[in-house]
């Protein structure tokens, strides 16, 4: 009874040990291949889950099954219009065939070296065909798609799939940036000048129009005033003529008398002869 228990225990321990060295799990993020004495076993890589191998003679190599990132160093590239630009790109790639990958590249490090060679040269070739502004603006997607396609073809034999090569930054070297800043400054100065002189133009226009209007208003008033005065004078003249016309003789008489009264002032000398009607009764 006791001995069987002991034996059972020992069997369990040994069995557990053998099983644990034979069983292995592959995580959802991984793939694996089994290597038997340096040679891959089977044609297919192992997906996630529980797997078994022969202890001691077989060992397992794990690979990352996720999309991996390759961030290249920024690189100075000459565009077709002889401008320099620093292009910073990244590449998204994936190990799709672990067996090939293991035999040809073996490690992620090795893959990065291949990616570096291929993607960089492809970028250089593609970007060299376009002008700077095409790279920055409307040809960007086209370039990225072309580089992605070509890199994908070139890296396929390594068991690598290139999903996307993407230009992250396109910067200008410092001296080119300076000349752009100079141009931007000049453009803005021109714009500022234009605004100010447009303002002055509008101001002069408005002031001149106002002056003109004032002159017209005053001239209109003067015109109106003369018309009114004329009307007054005319009406007055008519009134006088109507009244005085009833006896021009009497008007001449009274008006003359009034004129004498006002006309003779001090220092006037009056010589009267006795024949004057005034002296009629003195004779």
């Amino acid at each position, binding site marked *: 009874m006791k001995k069987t228990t002991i034996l059972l225990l020992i069997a369990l321990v040994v069995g557990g040990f053998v099983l644990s060295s034979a069983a292995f799990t*592959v*995580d959802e*993020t*991984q793939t694996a291949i089994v290597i038997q004495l340096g040679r891959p076993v089977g044609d297919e890589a192992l997906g*996630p889950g*529980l797997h078994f191998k022969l202890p001691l003679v077989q060992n397992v190599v794990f690979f990352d099954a996720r*999309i991996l*990132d390759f961030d290249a160093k920024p690189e100075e590239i000459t565009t077709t219009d002889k401008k320099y630009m620093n292009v910073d790109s*990244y590449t*998204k790639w994936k190990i799709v065939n672990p067996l090939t990958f293991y035999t040809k590249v073996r490690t992620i490090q090795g893959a990065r070296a291949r990616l570096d060679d291929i993607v960089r040269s492809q970028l250089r070739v593609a970007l060299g065909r376009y002008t700077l502004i095409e790279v*920055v603006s*409307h040809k*960007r997607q086209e370039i990225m798609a072309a580089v992605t396609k070509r890199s994908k073809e070139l890296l396929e034999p390594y068991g690598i799939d290139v*999903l*996307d090569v993407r*230009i992250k930054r396109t*910067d200008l070297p410092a001296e080119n940036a300076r000349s*752009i*800043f100079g141009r*931007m*400054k000049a453009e*803005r100065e021109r714009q*500022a000048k234009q*605004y*100010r002189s*447009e*303002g002055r133009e*509008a*101001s002069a226009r408005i002031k001149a129009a*106002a002056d003109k209007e004032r002159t017209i*208003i*005053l001239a209109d*008033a003067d015109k*109106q*005033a003369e018309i009114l*005065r004329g*009307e*007054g004078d005319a*009406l*007055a*003249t008519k*009134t*006088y003529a109507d*009244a005085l016309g009833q006896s021009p003789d*009497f008007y001449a*008489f*009274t008006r003359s008398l009034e004129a*004498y*009264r006002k006309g*003779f*002032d*001090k*220092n006037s*000398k*009056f*010589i*009267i*002869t*006795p024949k004057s009607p*005034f002296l009629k009764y003195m004779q």
Partner: protein
Amino acid sequence: MNWDWEKLQKQQQGRPGGKPPSFDDFQEQLEKFKNFKLPGWKFIVPIIILLWIASGFYIVEPDEVGVVKQFGQFNRVTTAGPNYHIPFPVESVLTPKVTQIRRVEFGFRSSGLARNLSFQQGVSREVKEESLMLTGDENIVSVQFIVQYMIKDAKNYLFNVNDPEMTLAHAGEAAMREVIGYGKIDDALTTGKQEIQVSTRTLMQEILDMYDTGLSVVAVQMQNVHPPDEVIDAFKDVASAREDKSRFINEAEAYQRDILPKARGEASHITNNALAYKEAKIRKAEGDAARFLSVLAEYNKAKDITRQRLYLETMEAILANPEIEKVIMSDDALRKSVPYLPLEKLPAAKQQPAPQPTQ
């Protein structure tokens, strides 16, 4: 542990004797070992098994989902609340926070440290190599923006990409630069912001979906968009020039609004003066005419006598003036005398010669 301690006791007991433990001793110890061991097992094994089973319980918080892997392979997704999985080493669980909205900064760091720490008001530092971008019209603009994102598919998020956050950061930078590269600098600085945000968000989402990152871009928000430091003064001057322009116009309008009412006032003064002249003139004429007609009516009744009276009264008034020199001379004397007028002697006080009186 119990038996260990006992064994140690035994060894210590045997040691003072100085002789090494014999096979008998070992046999004896083995017996003891078995004797002490067995009651322990009865308690410990079930407890260990219970603990092992209990370790399979886990709680998924409301903002999380549980992703269960069986031998490393994705098995199922569990939702909030208490859940159970077969304990280690068969199943394991990951609980990413899927409702949490995270935030990444581009072109600046508000905390001065890592790019995805929580937001702090105030302190922020521009990161020029990230913020400066070329625009489609070959200008350079500094764009600082944030991206808010969340996990939309926990399985993809956990298993598809080796570093989803870094991927998002790369995609954000590439997308914004691409969108800015299409547009003009003025769009980015002024009215085009909304459109840029929307396009960037769409493009980022496309990129992230292409990689199956399981991330969803909630919003792209431009924070601070300005011209580079080197040219900012020129840009500010444009703004003040625009202000100057409207100031000039306003000043001119003020001038206009000042002089035109004044002119209208003056015009009204002029016309009213004329109107007053007209009315006064008419009234004067009417008055004069009425007076004349009244006098005429009386004159007509007694023409001669009135004529005589008016004549005499006038002459009297003229001659009554002491200042007027009067000379009475007969016609003969006048005819005989030399018609001489000492004009230079006439006005003693006056410089001007008085008008020659005539009758």
